[in-house]
């Protein structure tokens, strides 16, 4: 996949979802101002936003983009990487705004919490992406799995005081989730 195709695909989706991204950023700003000191805030709340952004990639919400992507000469794994980037960019933006708002409110460790929150948010978002290609129980399972990934990341980073373990866990979870999503997308028949 060329960088041009990747950019076009991500930009087109983000443009279509601009309102959703804006609402997510506004919500992150408000919660960041209200709850600046607790690490659970950015990790849990921004993971929740990431899961919502991931679910917004479900087929059928933007049919003309879906059809273009499905008929484009792209491999399933290439399309998966590009589609995974969209909610990750949106969720990362919301997380950064949360950290900025918390920093403005005088939270001393807001900037330090940013990489911890970002790692958890990316892992949760990528895990939730697999839910977009599934229905009912299986869909709910992936959403719960995404929430669990975020909770485990929080436990490793904050109560266990081991940010490195959290980064390692999130890297592995993200890798597996992206691989799973790519395989599901390659098998997916858009009927």
């Amino acid at each position: 996949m060329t960088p041009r195709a990747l950019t076009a695909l991500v930009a087109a989706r983000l443009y279509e979802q601009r309102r959703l991204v804006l609402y997510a950023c506004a919500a992150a700003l408000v919660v960041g101002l209200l709850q600046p000191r607790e690490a659970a805030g950015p990790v849990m709340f921004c993971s929740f936003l990431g899961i919502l952004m991931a679910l917004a990639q479900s087929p059928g919400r933007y049919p003309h983009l879906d059809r273009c992507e499905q008929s484009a000469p792209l491999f399933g794994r290439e399309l998966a990487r590009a589609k995974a980037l969209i909610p990750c960019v949106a969720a990362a933006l919301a997380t950064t705004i949360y950290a900025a708002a918390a920093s403005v409110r005088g939270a001393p460790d807001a900037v330090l919490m940013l990489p911890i929150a970002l790692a958890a948010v990316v892992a949760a978002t990528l895990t939730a992406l697999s839910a977009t290609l599934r229905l009912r129980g299986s869909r709910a399972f992936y959403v719960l799995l995404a929430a669990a990934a975020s909770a485990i990341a929080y436990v490793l980073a904050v109560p266990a005081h081991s940010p490195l373990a959290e980064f390692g866990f999130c890297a592995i979870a993200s890798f597996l989730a992206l691989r799973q999503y790519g395989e599901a997308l390659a098998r997916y028949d858009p009927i």
Partner: protein
Amino acid sequence: MPLLRMRSASFRLGSWSVAPVTLDVEPGELAARTFASAREAAVVALMAAGIVKASSGCVLIGDFDPRVQSVHCKRIAGFVPHEPVGLEERDFAAYVAYRAALWNVEARLAFERASALRTALGDMHEAFALPFIGALLAGPELIVLDRPMPAYAERILRVAGGKAVLSTHTNVAAARAFRRRDALRATPA
């Protein structure tokens, strides 16, 4: 050599399935096929464009199997969906740039080609014209139309030029409009 070969190609989703389809489309041929339901027509068009993989039977697009070489198939077949796109004329340039990027067509060339096609399609509504122009941008050898509007048949076939065209329909009159040369050599499996 046929550009598209479908041999008892069927698709199954739960208890619902598409009856096996067998057809050949040669280069330059205009082929139109009628189906009992809109869903069946849509699925066959998607299979012919390499977007949906047949559950049983065989589909070959220019000798490539969509189950293994879907990227090659999608370079040969351009798919035009039935649903109109929710875009307006002012979105034309952005839409062309987007399609050109996904199909790796040079932006300037794509825009020139798209502008010429838009002029050739005349007053065809943009919601139907844009997907058709988008499908033609990368110069596919086979154009697959999912239930196109018969009112646009003449313009679509004129613009398609000498390319092979396969269209799926739910009524015979619409299929007849897209089968002027009666070139379909399809036989029920």
